[in-house]
């Protein structure tokens, strides 16, 4: 759903494709399609003796139908769209950075320890904000490292390594 809003589509098509309902419907269809593809080999069984795939495939078909219905309603509703992308391009950057910050944090926590993981999270996360001020961020990082250590290691005794383990 993060498609580039600068696509060279003619005006009416853009209006339709960027309609929230159309996009939401397409998203549901995509998820249902993925689910159907993933569950293609699950044994289905019968209603009485349901196999592993019975419920998943049933729900995927329902979701597919609902998605189609939602996007169809979006197509027929010309007034609902302003022609503007529901997710503007300028919004992408902070959103992706928050995502990356969390993923890096998760992957670093066990290998590099709490301190490095928190520093990485703050560094990447701070880039997501619009008003980056270096001195403030350094201060915030120091504060958060101390806070995380005090609450989670000293206070709650979680078994997360504090420093990198070589």
């Amino acid at each position, binding site marked *: 759903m993060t498609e580039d809003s600068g696509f060279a589509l003619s005006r009416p098509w853009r209006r339709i494709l960027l309609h929230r309902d159309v996009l939401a419907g397409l998203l549901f269809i995509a998820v249902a399609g993925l689910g159907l593809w993933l569950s293609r080999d699950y044994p289905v069984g019968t209603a009485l003796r*349901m196999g592993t795939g019975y419920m998943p495939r049933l729900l995927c078909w329902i979701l597919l139908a609902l998605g189609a219905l939602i996007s169809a309603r979006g197509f027929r509703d010309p007034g609902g769209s302003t022609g503007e992308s529901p997710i503007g391009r300028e919004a992408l950057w902070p959103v992706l950075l928050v995502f990356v910050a*969390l993923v890096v944090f998760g992957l670093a*926590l066990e290998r590099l320890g709490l301190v490095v993981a928190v520093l990485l999270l703050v560094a990447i996360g701070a880039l997501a*904000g619009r008003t980056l001020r270096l001195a403030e961020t350094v201060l915030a990082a120091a504060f958060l490292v101390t806070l995380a250590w005090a609450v989670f290691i000293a206070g709650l005794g979680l078994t997360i390594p504090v420093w990198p383990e070589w």
Partner: protein
Amino acid sequence: MELLSNLALGFSVALTPWNMLFAFIGAMVGTLIGVLPGIGPIATIAMLLPLTFHLEPTAGLIMLAGIFYGAQYGGSTSAILINLPGETSSVVTTIDGHQMALQGRAGAALAAAALASFFAGCVSTALIATFAPPLARLGQSFGSPEYFSLMVLGLIAAVVLAHGSVIKAVAMIVLGLLLGLVGTDGNTGGQRFTFGLNDLADGLDVATLAIGLFGISEIMANLAQRESSRDVVAKKITRLWPTADDFRRGWPAVLRGTGLGAVLGVLPGGGATLSSFAAYALEKRVSNRPEMFGRGAIEGVAAPEAANNAGAQSSFIPMLTLGIPGNPVMALMIGALMIHGIQPGPQIMTERPQMFWGMVASMWVGNLMLVIINLPLIGFWVQLLKVPYRFLYLAILLFCGIGVYTVSNSPAAVVIAAVFGLLGFVFQRLNCEPAPLILGFVLGPLMEENLRRALRVSGGDPMIFLNRPISLGLLITAAILLLIVALPAIRSTREQAFQE
């Protein structure tokens, strides 16, 4: 008097220093996140859920409950002082509350909100104590067909009461049901949607999902907008006590708000947010000076604040008595029970009376603490509001990350939460509410279990759901609800109601 002895038991549990400490922590944390815009009770409770593993279950539940109703108190503070709701349930409080603050009556508005919340909290605690035992007895006569039908009704009611498009809410529920299937199939042992990953073999965790959909996506949404400047009405709050005229106008509004909130909170899909919107609409309609609404009418503060607290607390009734969550917070509470190996359902009250009544009594204790936390300490919370968001979101992001990690001590959970954060952000932009998804996710496995059990009892005959009177009644109610939404005439009034 069974009720009195039950309450005596409850207070003997709630008033132990240990449990009072956790009621206080819950109330404090609840007020904190209530005051701060950008983090809500769902994400907070999800983050703290793994920590309750180290606590005794009663103390853990008391703390989590305190966070939920504490947030209803704190939400009004930022709504009144900076015109920015701390919680979605305080959105309507901004309308008249901030106007009052601009007119130099911030103190009166804050006091009205806190006192209304306290009154509503006391009343709904009494309601829980009165109505929970008979409801639990009714629940104990339920078999798996009744439970299945009850959950169908619950999901449909959640759709009907959801904001916005009904069909999108249905799709979100189905998506939640699908996500609930991830993991090992309990009946056949087959793997579903695990991508061959060990981390997914036990299924997704409700806390991970909730932190992603409600915590992380909220950070993303806030950063995607321009940072709005916050003008704290920092003029000294001199007069905390409302005037005699405020009391005269506020009282009936508080009573109406409490009643409405208590009723709406019990309904699935109801709870604090719906209650506050409905209460505001009701006040505007019955008022003899509707032109004052939006210009600082005290009723517009007192009624929704009473309603959101009443709704927050009465939504515990179906969760505690039937094991059915009506909103995402209750879904997480059920998760907390399960962490301790407690099967949610009507037997909780008979098997663990200390826990049940201790929690009910702690709500009253917690509400009393909240008045003290909120009124005399208001200056502290005002200072807190001056912390800029560019610091806050880093702290929230960090606590989300560590919270998710501790759910299962696995880095994979953090990555999964990040993915759901992204998904939640997209849903938000496409006007899809995430609450029905969480309900579907929690109820899905329970429904499948009861469906299979019922069909095994009946030898595969689906008529079992229609042959048993209670089950039939529940299904008919569900069908009527669906019909009501489908009828265009009623649909337009419903949209009107949400517009207000």
